[in-house]
């Protein structure tokens, strides 16, 4: 009788928590499970469900988490060929072989790659050459997030999971008898995911996985893939490759192909990766993730023609693919077709993407496609939505619009504002330098250009401008060194070549 008063018309807690879990209300699910476990500590279903709910809270798809810390970029040496032929390596891509726009048209990221249309966590825009260089360059120059010494996201995930649990961790892994759990596949799988994704304890996860796969007589492809994931995290790429290939022999899944491609990318074998993806496409024809994988690799090899072709194919199957739309739009914008770029970006807007970057791009496209009624509205929207990171870029672009209508004073103010919100904005410094040069303030201009050149060593514009300025006042030594740096950033720049030729004549003349 007393029990009936305590729980009037209560749903079965296990059913309730399962329902919560299905509806992705993970916190409520965890709460109900905790209560159930308090009542009965040996309730395995509750334990299993809580494990899964906790994992789902912090789950990040492993395929897209591809971050390289400074250490992985510089210290480890997995690439087979040290001096690969151009076009066969991600580290030294062929220069503009695919007919992409030159640096004179398409701006470069700070690490010397053409800016991409879509930033992913795995986006590496070039690699630093030495440790010193890596530490000196801005923290977000190579990847989409600040670089740490080792892959930072994993560390942060681990600590975050601790915070989420005020009364200590849910499972104390060191006390678990992993071999016992490995014998029970229904418990082992959630436990593995928990250890791997929630606790980020790769070693224990690996141990569990290896025992479990032994129990399964090496017949369960899932365990093989998990083993490969662990090996990948630990940097043992060849072992990872072996497991993935063996998994593919058992059962072919899209995920496995994606992992294998990822391993080959890390081994710096882009052509093998493309082949893997293509093999996957033969099995799963029309799978967009595989096509996107190929397109990304083409883009990283600067082979824009093929990349765009594949992105278009992706759109054929999935016409709301944000990455494909954005990349195609960017490519159109920089190949003198802002009208078409505008249509692609408008498509993104129709799909409900609503952020500062999109409005910024829309504003630029509107301006260059001569849709003057929409230009400033878009930029206003972009400013309203802008975070601290995008604000300088929006102002910088408004400055370009001001240049387009010939309003130098407004342009000057805009570039200043861009600097005010981000004081290491190299492009803004460069443009300010040019504006000062036009006014005839040579000293100011020199200061701005030098600031720009020191902030971004791969951008060729400040170096060339500085060389030109020095040449005009007769300081040929500075001119020579700056022109040489400009050539490093953009070897085919005809104006720099001409300037260097002139300088060399002056030096050799008696």
């Amino acid at each position, binding site marked *: 009788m007393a029990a009936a008063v305590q729980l009037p018309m209560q749903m079965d807690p296990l059913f309730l928590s399962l329902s919560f879990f299905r509806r992705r209300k993970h916190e409520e699910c965890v709460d109900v499970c905790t209560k159930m476990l308090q009542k009965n500590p040996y309730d395995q279903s509750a334990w299993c469900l809580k494990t899964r709910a906790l994992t789902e809270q912090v789950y990040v798809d492993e395929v897209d988490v591809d971050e390289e810390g400074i250490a992985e970029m510089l210290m480890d040496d997995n690439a087979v060929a040290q001096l690969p032929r151009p076009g066969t390596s991600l580290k030294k891509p062929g220069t503009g072989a695919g007919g992409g726009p*030159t640096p*004179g*048209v398409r701006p470069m990221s700070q690490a010397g790659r053409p800016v991409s249309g879509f930033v992913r966590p795995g986006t590496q825009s070039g690699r630093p050459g030495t440790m010193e260089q890596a530490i000196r360059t801005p923290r977000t120059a190579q990847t989409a997030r600040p670089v740490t010494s080792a892959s930072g996201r994993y560390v942060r995930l681990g600590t975050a999971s601790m915070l989420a649990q005020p009364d200590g961790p849910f499972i104390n892994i060191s006390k678990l008898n992993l071999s016992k759990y490995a014998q029970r596949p229904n418990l082992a799988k959630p436990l593995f995911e928990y250890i791997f994704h929630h606790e980020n304890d790769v070693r224990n996860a690996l141990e569990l996985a290896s025992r479990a796969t032994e129990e399964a007589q090496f017949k369960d492809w899932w365990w093989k893939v998990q083993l490969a994931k662990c090996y990948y995290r630990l940097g043992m790429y060849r072992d990872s490759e072996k497991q993935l290939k063996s998994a593919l022999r058992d059962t072919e899944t899209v995920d496995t192909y994606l992992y294998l491609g990822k391993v080959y990318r890390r081994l710096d074998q882009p052509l093998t990766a493309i082949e893997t993806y293509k093999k996957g496409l033969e099995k799963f024809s029309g799978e967009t993730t595989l096509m996107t994988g190929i397109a990304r690799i083409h883009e990283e090899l600067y082979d824009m023609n093929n990349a765009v072709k594949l992105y278009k194919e992706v759109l054929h199957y999935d016409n709301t693919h944000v990455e494909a739309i954005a990349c195609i739009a960017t490519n159109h914008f920089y190949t*003198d077709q802002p009208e078409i770029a505008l249509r692609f970006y408008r498509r993104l807007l129709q799909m409900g993407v609503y952020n500062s970057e999109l409005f910024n791009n829309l504003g630029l496209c509107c301006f*260059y496609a*001569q849709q*003057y009624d929409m230009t400033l509205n878009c930029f206003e929207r972009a400013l309203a939505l802008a975070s601290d990171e995008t604000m300088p870029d929006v102002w910088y672009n408004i400055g*370009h619009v001001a*240049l*387009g*209508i*010939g*309003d*130098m004073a407004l342009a000057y103010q805009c570039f200043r504002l861009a600097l005010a919100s981000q004081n290491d904005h190299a492009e803004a410094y460069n443009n300010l330098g040019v504006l000062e040069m*036009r006014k005839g303030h040579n000293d100011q201009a020199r200061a701005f250009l030098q600031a720009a050149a020191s902030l971004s060593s791969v951008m060729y514009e400040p170096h060339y401008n500085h060389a030109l300025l*020095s040449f005009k*006042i*007769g*300081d*040929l*030594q500075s001119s*020579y*060194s700056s022109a*040489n740096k400009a050539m490093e950033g953009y070897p085919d*720049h*005809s104006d720099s070549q001409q300037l260097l030729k002139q*300088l*060399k004549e*002056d*030096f*050799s*003349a*008696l």
Partner: protein
Amino acid sequence: PAKRSEAPKRRGKVPDLPVFERRNWLIHMHYVRKEFDKCKVLIKEQLFETQYMCEYALYAQALILRQEGKIQESLDLFQQTVKINPFNADNLKQVARSLFLLARHKAALEVYNEAAKLSSKDWEIYHNQGVCYLYLKDFEKAKDCLKHAIQYHRHDASFLQLGKIYLMEGDIESAIDTYKKAIEFSPENPDLMTTLGLLYLQIGMTQRAFEYLGNAMTYDPSHVKAILGAGSMIQTHGDFDVALTKYRIAASKIPESPHMWNNIGMCFFGKKKYVAAISCLKRAAYMAPFEWIIIYNLGLIHLTMQQYASAFHFLSAAITLKPKHGQLFQLLAIALTHLDDHDNAKQAYEQAIMLDIDDPAISLNYAIFLYNMEDRKQASRHFAAYEKKMEVFRKTKGGDIEREILETGNRLGPALQVGEKLVWDAEAKTTRIP
């Protein structure tokens, strides 16, 4: 300085070379073959043997450093050679040259003066002094020095610098004379010919200009400047296809030159391929946002395409970049007329007439505009102005009058009394010369 020791005399026994200058000939040999690495090793040995007292080794080292762009270091070395041998004009000249390359023009002048005391009648010293004066903006002295230099020894570089001074002063006639003399002296230099051709183009002597540019292209078929100049002349005569083939040669060499894309765009405009023209011009404008002529051309094309909003936008941008230009205001007024802003159009016409007093087309367009506004009195006044300007124009330029303007004028004449339907026109604008 010590090159004399190169050729040993074969008489009797081998002469006893002084130890300091022992291997100068070898160093010199490597230097003139541009084998700088071997040269440096030799120099190092030589300098070590002689405790940095070998003049020629220091001198060669400094020259190499200068060719590598390390001017400051080369200056230090040249100063050492001066210390070793203060009575050698060459050493002083090199010190001055290094100072000059470091933009210390006043100091360079002083050193050149000292060098001149040691060796008079040296064209190099005069030439370099002239260039220094040029950087210090003292044109009179610079001209004097360069003329002296030419007297002692005629040299391309002196002519070039002298021509540059005349151009900076705005004296095109003298500049042309200078360049002509230069070409007499070295008739196979395409750079000189191109410059001369472009100068002739500037003063309107197209036949001569074409001759020189053509010559330049025969010596160097891919000389970009000559191609652009000749292309723009061919374009003025209406042979757009020929001009385009010329530009195609240049396009592989300078794919990102805004001037070339501007000219290509205007070629397409002439062939009535407006969309292609716009895309070429927009590419040019993307690469050179400060060039008013590109923006002006864009405005002109959009007027032709009857896209008046864009035309207004481009023209007003061009006006902010180049405020004192009558034609710009005229086109702006036309754009404004079609945007139904008659007050501003009127003001723009007034401005255009004020800024450009010779062009009959402005007056004609204004007259048409006023006529359409039904202000007959003012219209006939400006029509009279147009006729007067036309007379002057006919006298000075001869037959170079656009037929379209004449026809429109002839139609407006009677219309001002009778009333007839009208069309506006904008005359095709020729392109610029880079």
